[in-house]
């Protein structure tokens, strides 16, 4: 408690005071009720870890009152080839950042195309009304390979039309987070939730052969919690949340 100023009145709250203050603060946070997240041990998952990095980056900027360009939060200690330094200030401009855990994961293989791909789905309907997506990323973890000195070609598509969204050329020996820009699709899904058929991730060797995702070192839902795929979206509120004076 060393950061609590000496003049703070510090005493245990009585029950009715606690309920009164809880109601007051929920109204300040703009929440209808206090959330009740379900998954145990959730704090150790990849999304909360990443978001905590963003929170610390934002807190530093608020302290400095500066407008330092936002750089991808320190990843799980991996090679720069897999990180994306965002020189824009969308973290500064963002009023809200939201991460979404993967809901479904299916490995699929089409015989006539011999095309391997993994499907991921995220529910963006929880986004509060009036928020506009200014940027969105799909983040997935790739283990490093020592043996093969080759490159992989990762591409992320939107289902149904297999509409190519983003692609990455990555050396097999590199490990860490792959970050795909899915801003356009996220906005599309927010406007048309019924057309959200998820993402498809496919991997090819440089000579165009489609290979199984797992054999390229990709970590899916069954991997360790701190390496599971997630989507993170940055929002700019349309109306400023004005708090009534109390």
């Amino acid at each position: 408690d060393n950061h609590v100023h000496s003049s703070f009145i510090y005493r245990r709250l009585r029950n009715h005071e606690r309920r009164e203050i809880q109601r007051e603060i929920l109204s300040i946070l703009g929440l209808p009720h206090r959330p009740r997240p379900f998954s145990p041990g959730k704090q150790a998952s990849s999304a909360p870890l990443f978001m905590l990095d963003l929170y610390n980056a934002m807190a530093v900027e608020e302290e400095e009152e500066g407008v330092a360009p936002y750089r991808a939060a320190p990843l799980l200690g991996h090679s720069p080839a897999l990180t994306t330094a965002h020189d824009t200030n969308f973290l500064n401009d963002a009023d809200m950042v939201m991460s979404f855990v993967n809901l479904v994961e299916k490995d699929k293989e089409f015989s006539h195309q011999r095309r391997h791909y993994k499907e991921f789905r995220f529910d963006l309907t929880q986004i509060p009304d009036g928020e506009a997506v200014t940027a969105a990323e799909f983040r997935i973890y790739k283990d490093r390979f020592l043996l093969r000195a080759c490159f992989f070609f990762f591409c992320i598509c939107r289902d149904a039309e297999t509409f190519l969204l983003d692609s990455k050329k990555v050396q097999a020996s590199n490990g860490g987070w792959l970050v795909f820009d899915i801003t356009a699709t996220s906005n599309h899904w927010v406007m048309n939730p019924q057309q959200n058929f998820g993402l498809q991730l496919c991997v090819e060797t440089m000579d165009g052969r489609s290979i199984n995702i797992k054999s390229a070192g990709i970590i899916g839902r069954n991997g360790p919690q701190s390496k599971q795929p997630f989507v993170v979206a940055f929002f700019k509120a349309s109306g400023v949340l004005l708090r009534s004076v109390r």
Partner: protein
Amino acid sequence: AVGGKKKNQNRNKSTNKQESSRIPKPGDYNTSEQKQACKKHELYVSFRDLGWQDWIIAPEGYAAFYCDGECSFPLNAQMNATNHAIVQTLVHLMFPDNVPKPCCAPTKLNAISVLYFDDSSNVILKKYRNMVVRSCGCH
């Protein structure tokens, strides 16, 4: 007081007249009435004390300040006691019901960011601009 005590009443009246014309000096108030000048007061809100650490990831709590205290018109080069009395009189003539009274309110506000889980265990990082009082003043 019932009749018969007219003399007393007169005396009372004269002393009352003296009383009202004399402007009380700060020392005249007893301590309970003496209010502090307008300033920022501190109130630390601990999310842990509210039993919310299962869904609020950060911060642990925050310093929620509020403004309170007595505001007297700042007498300065432009607004000396005479001008102050003229302003009060004019305003009172226009709006007899309400006595113009400066209020102690925030003059600068800070943002605060909160990181929390929603019902579906998605993680939300929300920046609340103009949420925490930084400094107070008389308006």
